[in-house]
């Protein structure tokens, strides 16, 4: 969890309580498919896989097609477009512990060209401070494209956000 936002204090209570924060370390395995997908991001490529049975291209890449349950060997790697259309979005304008960055920010589902599903990512590159203006602007936004981070770590933040074309 990214600690962009300080842990909120629990409201002061009139009865006796004890604090019990759970702090635990993790070492999550990406597996070969996602290793390749994230390494692709580092090279500014967005990779998906095509299921040879249903022919759908899914992004991020999958080790198996969720509907056909076919194995990796039956998947074909495809580089999809860095541009696409906005399917739906929301403007996060409140704070909670563990959120990925300081609000406000837009999370969206984006259909990249040549993909048969949508991906989740941020939309940015313009002033987000006034929610009403953001809503007005987003009405006219349909096409967006990936903006890459300067420093890359082979993770999902290698794409900084998507910006209106």
């Amino acid at each position, binding site marked *: 969890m990214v600690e962009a936002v300080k842990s909120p204090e629990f409201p002061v209570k009139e*009865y006796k309580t004890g604090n019990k924060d759970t702090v635990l370390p993790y070492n999550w*395995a990406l597996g070969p498919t996602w290793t390749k997908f*994230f390494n692709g991001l580092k090279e500014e490529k967005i990779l998906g896989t095509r299921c040879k049975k249903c022919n759908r291209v899914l992004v991020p890449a999958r080790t198996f097609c969720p509907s056909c349950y076919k194995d990796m060997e039956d998947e074909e790697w495809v580089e999809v477009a860095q541009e696409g259309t906005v399917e739906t979005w929301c403007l996060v304008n409140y704070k909670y512990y563990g959120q990925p960055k300081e609000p406000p920010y837009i999370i969206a589902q984006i259909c990249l060209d040549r993909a048969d599903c949508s991906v989740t990512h941020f939309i940015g590159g313009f002033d987000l401070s006034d929610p009403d203006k953001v809503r007005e602007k987003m009405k006219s936004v349909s096409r967006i494209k990936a903006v890459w981070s300067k420093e890359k770590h082979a993770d999902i933040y290698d794409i900084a956000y998507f910006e209106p074309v």
Partner: protein
Amino acid sequence: MAEKNEKPRTIHTVLRVPFEMALGPTWTRFFEGLREKKILGTKCKECGRILVPARPFCPRCFEPMEEWVEVAQEGTIITWSYVNYTYFGVTADMIPIVPTRIKLDGVDGGWGGRIGGFDIKDFDLVNKKVKVGARVKAVWSGERHGHLRDIEYWEIIE
């Protein structure tokens, strides 16, 4: 398929989720007891058992345990162990630990504590002194905060 040079990676992180638990009237009173150097239990009106730490209800009879009893600060070791390894949250300077379960005199069942009062780094000494059935008594810490560690350790009575 991943190419040979793409060794599957792992991502390391530490996750923290905050919680704040209510102690409730029963345990609040129990912990206040510790502050006053008292070990408090509750007695079940059905089965007559006295349980420590104090309980709001008897887990077996399922009736409220409303009768409070101050219990003895001496008891017998039911079991013990010797912790000599580290893991996340437990560093080398925190070990060894000699955890024990003690049957306090007059109490039904046992409860947990740590053995101390001598050099527990010496395993052979521990193994010689700490025995199932050995008598122990509570040693209170100088400053108490209404916390379980108000009992600093349990001391073997020869």
